């Protein structure tokens, strides 16, 4: 068995399952947002803010953000292990990716509950 310590779930099976579950969540969220924009052609700040003031929308959005974070980690980790053969470079890029994902996640939470 091949060992690994920087993959998302430390297991190919768990990463694979998480990649598929997060993809479904992101697809549902995308369809919802696009549909909301289509059904509200005269969208103003109050309608947009009203949508995100509701608890279910915040939960739905946070779910989508977490799914995006996991999805990005698993996908980009795979890309780095395919193409970056220098260990120093690979670990460095993986660290930058994970840090970036963490920053975006916290920033997203702040936007959701901050306004």
């Amino acid at each position, binding site marked *: *068995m*091949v*060992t*690994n310590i920087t*993959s998302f779930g430390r*297991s*190919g*099976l768990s*990463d*694979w*399952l998480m990649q598929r579950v997060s993809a479904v969540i992101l697809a549902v969220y995308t369809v919802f947002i696009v549909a909301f924009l289509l059904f509200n052609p005269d969208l103003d700040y109050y309608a947009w803010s009203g949508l995100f003031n509701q608890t279910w929308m915040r939960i739905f959005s946070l779910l989508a953000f977490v799914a995006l974070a996991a999805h990005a980690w698993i996908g980009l980790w*795979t890309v780095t*292990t*395919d*193409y970056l053969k220098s260990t120093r470079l690979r670990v460095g890029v993986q660290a930058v990716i994970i840090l970036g994902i963490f920053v975006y996640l916290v920033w997203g939470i702040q936007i959701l509950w901050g306004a």
Partner: protein
Amino acid sequence: MSNLQVSVYRYNPETDSAPYMQEFQVDTKGRDVMVLDVLHIMKEQDSGLAFRRSCREGVCGSDGMNMNGKNGLACITPLSDVVKNNKLVLRPLPGLPVIRDMVVDMGLFYKQYERIQPYLQNDTPPPAIERLQSPEERDKLDGLYECILCACCSTACPSFWWNPEKFVGPAGLLQSYRFLADSRDTATSERLSNLEDPFSVFRCRGIMNCVAVCPKGLNPTRAIGKIREMLLADAT
């Protein structure tokens, strides 16, 4: 009809500093011969040309090579299947170290094959007669046991090119499922636990190059999907 223009990958590490393509003009006398026949005609022109071949009928899997960009067995690939604009480009199987000309080092390929333990394991006492299978159990092995290990699929797979030491590759995984699916094998859970890391099986991205090139018409992608289903059923 003009002669077939063939461009062949040549590399002799003892005398050449770098690989190069050598041009041949081959007179096929208008017949739709196999690519292997063309190689033999070229060998008459230049006896130094090295390639593997044995059975010349698609059973031994020795003459897997890249013909006009697609992997296949030279002995069962007619010119009409691959030649475009009267040109044929022959290269060794991609992704494996070249020993000389069209001959590649299959070491990594066999190492991955060895890793999946390609033999029946059964820890129950042997019966007085053979371990019998029902016709339905035997049917599960169809489409799996026919693999001749020619390496056309694994060397057409980018995941195998990038991680040949970690990703088992389509050929190895097809054989892995052949033993996972066998009713006489009792090592299923040990086999599965050796495959659940992010590389061995899960580096497959399902692009199906393996299915497109398999000269025996087998479907490694389907077998990989079955292994994933078994892993999921075992671990959830």
